C-alpha cells in the first residue's frame, strides 16, 4: 500500500516497493539531486494526490525549489524517478510534460501583451479557439480589461495573476508555484493567497506550491511537507503539523515553540510521564516522538496559561511555579510575555486579551500551566533551536 499524503498525516509518505497500480497524482521516488559535491535533494519520496493543494515549505536552500524544477523538467535528477499520472517523466523535456510553472518573478514575456502572454501555451500546442479560452481565463483572474497592455504596465499583483493565468490556461496535470507571492507586499500577499486558493478550488487542478512562508503554506495548502537540508522532515495537514510536530525543526519553523529538557519517568499506553525540571508533566503517547529516556517537552506559546502565584488556572495539568516576567509586548489581540523560569530558561507565553486577566508587568512573579494534551515530546538529540531563525523570515 502506498501512503498517500492525506491518508498519512504526520508521516513522510514512503511508497512500498513493488506497487503496481498506476497512481494518478504526482509521485517522486527516491529522487536525489547533486550539484557537484552538494546534495540539494536527498532520496526524496513524495506523493501528491491528484487535485490537492500541496505546499513544499522550508528555508531557502532546503531543496524545495530544486525539487520543483525537477518536476518542471528544468533540472534532471541525479537518481530516482518522477511519475505523473502513471507516466515516467523523469527525463522528459520540459515542453513535453503536462506541467506548468508560475515562476518566482513571473517571467512574463515583456514583448508580448497580456493576451499573448496568456495565449502562449495554447498557441504552441496549436489549440483552436484561443481567443475564447484566453478571455475566459482573464475573466477568472479578473484582468480582462488589461488584455492589451504590456506586462511592464501592470502592478505586481496583476502581473502575478497574469503568470497564474498563463500557466492555468494549459490545464496542466500539475501546476507548480515557485514562491509566487514573494515579490508582493504583505497585504497584497494575503489577498492573493485567498485568490489562488479560490482558483484552485474552482479549477480543481493539482497545485504544488513552494514557499518559505509558513503562514502562506498553512493558509493555502491541504497538505504541507516541511523540507530541511534536502529531506522532508514531516508531512501532513497544516493543523496536524502545527499541533503535533515530530522534530524540533518543524516545531520551530512552523510557528514558535517552547522546548524544555525533561527525563522520561514512565511510559503508559496513552500517556508518557516526564520529569521536567523537577515537575512531573504528562504528554500524550501519540505526541511523544522519541524512544530515549530524555527528551524535549514542547508546548506552543499560545497554549501556555499564565496567572498569579496560587491562582487557579483553567488547566488540569501541573502548575509550574516560580516564573518571573522578563519581557512584555502588547500586540493588541494578545500580549506576548517572556517568562524566566527557575531553571534559567525563558519561556514564551501568548495570552489572548480577553479582559479576564490583567496584563502583567515586567518583574512580576507568575505561574504557568498548560493542558497536557497540547504538549509534545521530541528527541533530545535534535537541536532545540533548529529552524527557529529561518522561521522568522
Amino acid at each position, binding site marked *: 500500500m502506498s501512503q498517500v499524503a492525506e491518508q498519512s498525516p504526520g508521516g513522510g509518505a514512503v511508497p512500498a516497493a513493488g506497487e503496481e497500480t498506476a497512481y494518478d497524482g504526482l509521485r517522486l521516488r527516491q529522487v536525489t539531486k547533486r550539484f557537484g559535491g552538494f546534495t540539494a535533494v536527498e532520496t526524496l519520496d513524495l506523493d501528491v494526490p491528484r487535485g490537492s493543494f500541496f505546499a513544499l515549505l522550508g528555508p531557502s536552500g532546503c531543496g524545495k525549489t530544486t525539487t520543483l524544477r525537477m518536476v*518542471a*523538467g*528544468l533540472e534532471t535528477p541525479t537518481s530516482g524517478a518522477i511519475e505523473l499520472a502513471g507516466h515516467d517523466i523523469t527525463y522528459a*523535456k*520540459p*515542453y513535453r510534460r503536462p*506541467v*506548468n*510553472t508560475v*515562476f518566482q*518573478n513571473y*517571467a*512574463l*514575456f*515583456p*514583448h508580448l501583451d497580456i493576451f499573448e502572454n496568456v495565449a*502562449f*501555451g495554447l498557441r*504552441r*500546442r496549436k489549440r483552436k479557439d484561443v481567443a475564447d479560452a484566453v478571455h475566459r481565463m482573464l475573466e477568472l483572474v*479578473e484582468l480582462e*480589461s*488589461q488584455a492589451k497592455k504590456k506586462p*511592464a*504596465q*501592470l*502592478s*505586481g*499583483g*496583476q502581473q502575478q495573476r497574469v503568470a497564474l493565468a*498563463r*500557466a492555468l490556461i*494549459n490545464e496542466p496535470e500539475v501546476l507548480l508555484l515557485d514562491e509566487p507571492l514573494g515579490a508582493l*507586499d504583505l*497585504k*497584497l500577499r494575503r*489577498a492573493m493567497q485567498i*485568490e489562488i486558493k479560490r482558483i484552485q478550488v474552482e479549477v480543481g487542478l493539482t497545485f504544488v506550491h513552494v514557499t518559505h512562508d509558513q503562514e502562506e503554506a498553512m493558509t493555502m495548502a491541504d497538505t504541507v511537507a516541511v523540507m530541511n537540508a534536502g529531506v522532508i522532515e514531516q508531512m501532513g495537514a497544516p493543523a496536524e503539523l502545527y499541533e503535533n510536530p515530530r522534530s524540533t525543526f518543524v516545531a520551530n519553523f512552523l510557528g514558535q515553540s517552547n522546548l524544555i529538557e525533561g527525563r522520561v519517568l514512565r511510559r503508559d499506553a496513552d500517556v508518557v510521564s516526564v520529569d521536567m525540571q523537577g515537575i512531573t508533566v504528562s504528554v500524550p503517547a501519540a505526541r511523544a516522538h522519541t524512544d530515549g529516556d530524555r527528551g524535549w517537552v514542547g508546548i506552543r506559546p499560545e497554549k501556555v496559561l499564565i496567572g498569579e502565584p496560587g491562582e487557579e488556572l483553567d488547566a488540569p495539568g501541573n502548575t509550574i511555579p516560580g516564573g518571573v516576567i522578563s519581557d512584555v509586548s502588547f500586540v493588541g489581540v494578545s500580549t506576548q510575555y517572556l517568562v524566566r523560569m527557575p531553571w534559567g530558561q525563558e519561556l514564551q507565553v501568548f495570552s489572548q486579551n480577553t479582559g479576564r486577566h490583567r496584563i502583567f508587568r515586567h518583574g512580576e512573579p507568575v505561574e504557568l500551566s498548560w493542558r497536557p494534551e497540547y504538549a509534545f515530546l521530541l528527541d533530545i538529540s535534535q537541536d532545540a533551536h533548529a529552524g527557529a531563525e529561518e522561521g522568522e523570515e
Partner: protein
Amino acid sequence: MTSTAQPPPLVDALPTAEAEPPEQGGSRRRGGLTGYLLLLPATLWLLLFFVVPFYSLVATSLFDPSGSDFRGYEMTWEFGNYVDAVRDYWQPLLRSLWYGGLATLFCLVLGYVLAYAIAFKAGRWKNLLLVLVVAPFFTSFLVRTLSWKLILADDGFVVETLQFLHLLGDDGRLLATPVAVVAGLTYNFLPFMVLPLYASLEKIDPRLIEASGDLYANPFVGFFKVTWPLSLPGVVSGTLLTFIPAAGDFINAQLLGSPNQRMVGGVVQSLFTDANDYPAAGALSVIMMGGILMMVLVYVRRAGTEDLL
C-alpha cells in the same frame, strides 16, 4: 513602493491597493537655464564637427564644376552636379549598397551566433571572448585588410584549398572579386555587430527562455518567439553600425577588389585626390548620405523599435 499616487483607476476587482509600477519616461520639469547649459557642449560639438563640415560639403556639391584648384570655385547652384553624379556613378552607388547589405547580412548571421554563444554558453570565458572580439582593433584597419590580401592571395592556402576541392577553377582567384570585398567588409565590421547584439542578448532573463519551454515551446520555437524578438534592439543597432560604415567603405574594395568592385567611397576618394573634381565628389557624397539615411529611416520604422534604439 507605496501606492499613494495611483494613475487613473485600473479596473480591478481585487479590493486591495496594488502598488503601481514606477512611472516610465516621465519628464520632470526643472526650471531655469540648467537644461540648456547642459545641452551646450553637445550643441557646440555638433555645430563644429557636423553642421559646419556638412554645410561645406553641400556647398561644394553645388559649385560650378568647371572650376579648379587653380582658378577657385564659384557657387552657381549647380544642381546638375547631382544628375551627372548619378549618371556617371550609378554602378558604384548601387554596388556600395549591395556589398554593404551583403556584408551586414553575413555579419548578422555570424555575429548572432557568436554573441549568443558568449551571452548564454560561455560561462567564465565570457570576458575573455569579449576581449577577443575587440582584439583586432588593436591593430590598424589597414594592416588587417592587407593581411587579408595575403590570406586570399592567388597562391595562398585558401585559394589552393578551394582549387583542390574544385570549388574554384584552376585559374580562379578570390582577390579582385566581389567575394574578397564582401569577405573583407564582413571581417572588418563584425565587432560592430557582435557588441550590440551581445549587449541585448545578455540582458535577456534566462528564466524567460525557461518559461517558454515550460509553455510547450521547443528550443527552436522558443528562440523565434522569445529570444529573437527580445534581441531586436541589438539587431537594429548592430545592423546600422555595420551597414552605414560598410556601405561607405573604400579600403576593402581598393585593397581586395579590382576597379570592377569599386564602391562609392573609392570613387569619392579618387575624385577628390586624383581628379580634383570637388563638386562631383561632394554631390556623390551627399547622394550616398541621403540614400543611407532614407534606408535607415525606413528600416527603423519597419522594425518598429524607435523606442528601443
